[in-house]
């Protein structure tokens, strides 16, 4: 089952890359995807049955919209801090607890945090994320946990878990 998934995904990638529907092209693409699936399947994610459930794609699209909005906000925020003559920065590293369980969900959360306003993930140890923040708004753990992970955690829980 995992072999078939990797084969289909790489064939789709090949067809998008060449964008030509002739017979030699499809044959060459099939051979290349066969080699790719033979080599790289044991490194791929293990639970592929979740790819077949359609409601996850619905939540993924909503998550994408939220993510792009946060991303644009991040850029305007950084622009304000860079162009301001006094440079209002107050950096620090804070520690945030997450409730997500699976590894892929933690990775997606960390990548989202990296692109949101003023935060970069420094490290991830078990359930705790260490985050470098360009302007520490409050010293209270509950407040900043809500500020950093609150926007994404519920969508990611619906997409992956």
């Amino acid at each position: 089952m995992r072999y078939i998934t990797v084969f289909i995904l790489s064939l789709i990638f090949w067809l998008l890359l060449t964008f030509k529907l002739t017979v030699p092209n499809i044959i060459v693409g099939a051979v290349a995807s066969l080699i790719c699936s033979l080599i790289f399947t044991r490194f791929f994610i293990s639970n592929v049955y979740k790819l077949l459930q359609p409601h996850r794609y619905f939540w993924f699209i909503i998550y994408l919209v939220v993510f792009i909005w946060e991303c644009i906000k991040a850029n305007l925020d950084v622009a304000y801090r860079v162009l301001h003559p006094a440079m209002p920065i107050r950096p620090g590293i804070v520690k945030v607890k997450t409730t997500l369980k699976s590894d892929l969900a933690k990775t997606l959360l960390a990548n989202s945090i990296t692109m949101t306003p003023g935060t970069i993930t420094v490290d991830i140890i078990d359930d705790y994320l260490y985050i470098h923040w360009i302007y520490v708004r409050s010293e209270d753990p509950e407040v900043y946990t809500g500020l950093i992970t609150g926007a994404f955690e519920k969508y990611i829980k619906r997409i992956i878990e």
Partner: protein
Amino acid sequence: MNNMISLIFITIGILFNLLGCIGIIRLPDTYNRLQAATKCVTLGCCSILFGVFFHFGISNAGIKALIAIPILFLGSTVAAHALIRGTYHFGIKLGEKSVKDDYKDAVQ
């Protein structure tokens, strides 16, 4: 019409790139430089690629520009994460203005 939309996207992208490069010059220490530069330059280049997609339409080159966007996103965010962790382990101190450092206990 399509040309105008693509030109607008490319202009926005170059403005974001300009902000990121100003951030690289002005901000005081390595961590803050990485923050400004990664976010602005990544979104700027994604915007330029989106403009290229609007210029070519759905064709060979346009789809290729769309494929480049997720690779650029994943690559640059993971590279920034690895680079900032490496910087901390290399021994660079946080800047003078910083207020909080929870990561110090976890390293030892």
